[in-house]
Every structure is written in structure tokens, then in C-alpha cells.
């Protein structure tokens, strides 16, 4: 399984990787990006099975990243998990409408990420 993590904080990327490694039983290969533009470029060159993204990033933010992925025939449909400090209900509804599969609020832990993965899997099946 290949997962792209887009977050401008190396600390956040590392912490999210650790949580995902605990929550996912199969081998995971991680791709990383410091902003939405870098994530989009890397995903176009090497599609992933899932995107985990922050919202508040320089250059290209997470909201625009999700919008561009949803508009891309190549990337549209990729499961998207948003992990953000700005995750209130209004923002969550907007992101789900835009194409995110699940929105989690920082700080996360392996349990909340595991629940998020379950929600993503359930959404994919329905």
C-alpha cells in the first residue's frame, strides 16, 4: 500500500506515519510532500492508494489540493483523509462535500487514525 502524506511540518508527517504504521497491518510505503503543490506533482508521477493531508500549508493548501485531485481524471476517487488543526464541523462538511473521505482534528493518535481508516473503508464500499 502506498500513502502520500502532505503536511508542511516534518514533525506532523513523522507522527502520522507512526500512527498509520500501527493502524495498518500490511506493509506501507510512504510518499511525503511539504505542500499541496509538491503532493500533486508527486501523485501525478506516482499515484498512491490514499492521501493524508493537512489543510493549512504554504504554496498550495489542502483545500485546493483536494479540489484539484477531485478534478483530475487520473486522481479522482483516491481516498482522502484530512488531518488538521482547523477541523470544526463547518469546515468538515465543506471538505466532505469537496471529496475528502474523512476529516480528523489534530492532535491525532493511532486510535483516532484507525477509526478514520475504518470510515474511509466504509465510504469506499458504499
Amino acid at each position, binding site marked *: 500500500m502506498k500513502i502520500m502524506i502532505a503536511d508542511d*511540518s516534518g*514533525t506532523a508527517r513523522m507522527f502520522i506515519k507512526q500512527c498509520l504504521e500501527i493502524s495498518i497491518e500490511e506493509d506501507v510505503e510512504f510518499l511525503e510532500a511539504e505542500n499541496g503543490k509538491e503532493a500533486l506533482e508527486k501523485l501525478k508521477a506516482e499515484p498512491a492508494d490514499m492521501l493524508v493531508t493537512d489543510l493549512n500549508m504554504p504554496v498550495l493548501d489542502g483545500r485546493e489540493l483536494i479540489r484539484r485531485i477531485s478534478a483530475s481524471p487520473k486522481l479522482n476517487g483516491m481516498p482522502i483523509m484530512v488531518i*488538521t*488543526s*482547523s477541523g*470544526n464541523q463547518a*469546515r468538515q462538511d465543506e471538505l466532505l462535500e469537496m471529496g475528502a473521505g474523512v476529516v480528523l*482534528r*489534530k492532535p491525532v*493518535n493511532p486510535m483516532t487514525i484507525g477509526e478514520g481508516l475504518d470510515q474511509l473503508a466504509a465510504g469506499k464500499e458504499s
Partner: protein
Amino acid sequence: MTTINVEEVAEAMQKAISEVIENMAFMEAMPISNTVEYTPNEPVFYTRLPIYKPYPAMVGLVMPQSMALHLAGSMMMRDFTMENDEFEMMDVLSELANMLGGSLLTHLLPNMDSFELGLPECRVISDIEGGKEWENATVFPYELEGTMFLTTWSEGQ
């Protein structure tokens, strides 16, 4: 300009600090009296996070170097040194401030109103007496494993 009740900020800050520090570093920070003067005898990391919506404000985190090293080590599960890890330390503290700001606003705003955060900035201040950048902010002191640190809140930017 909207003025937020200081008691409400203090209560929300306490919840946010508990949530962030306990989740990320598995430690417990306790609020202490704000009449205690903050005079660390070492450099401090000052991290600030702008808030753009629903009103302009600034959240700050002031932490002595030794505590920041310990906290980062606990979060990232390895030893940190100033010689090798100053940049990464700043990233750790920036991410903490980011989570602190998000958690604070989640607890502060009624009805889960929308909010917008800026990008955090972190720097080391060697001489705290040389000018406290947060001197006009409301200060909320905490204690973590016997050492004092501050969170700050100011409206406007």
C-alpha cells in the same frame, strides 16, 4: 474589535494544553498562578501562531530550551540536542503551537464556528530580559514536570 473574556480564554487554554501535551508527549501540564514572574535562566523558544478568523489574534508558546528539548524528545522518541536539532526543535514547537491554536479555538468558539489559522513561527530568544515580545499579551503560565512555561493570547495582530 471583538473582545474575548479572559476567563473564557483561560478555560479554553487549559483544555487545549491538556489535550495537546497529553496526546503528543504523554505528560501533564498544570496551570499556575500568573503572579509568578517568568525569569528562566536559559534561552527560550518563542512560537507564535496568528489567527485570522473569526477575529485577528495571536497565540504564543514560550518554553525554556531544556523543556523544549525534553518535550520534543518525548514526542519523537529520541534524544534532541541544540547542536544537532535546532531546526527540528522549531518544527516540533511550531506543530505544537498549531495544534494548540486549533484546539483553543475549538473550545473557545460557540457552536463550532469556523476559524482560520495562519502559519506558526518559532525562534530562540537568548535574553528574555532584552524585550518580551509577548509583554502586551495575556499570559497563562503552566508547570510541566517542575518547570514553568507560558502560553499567551493577544487580540489584534
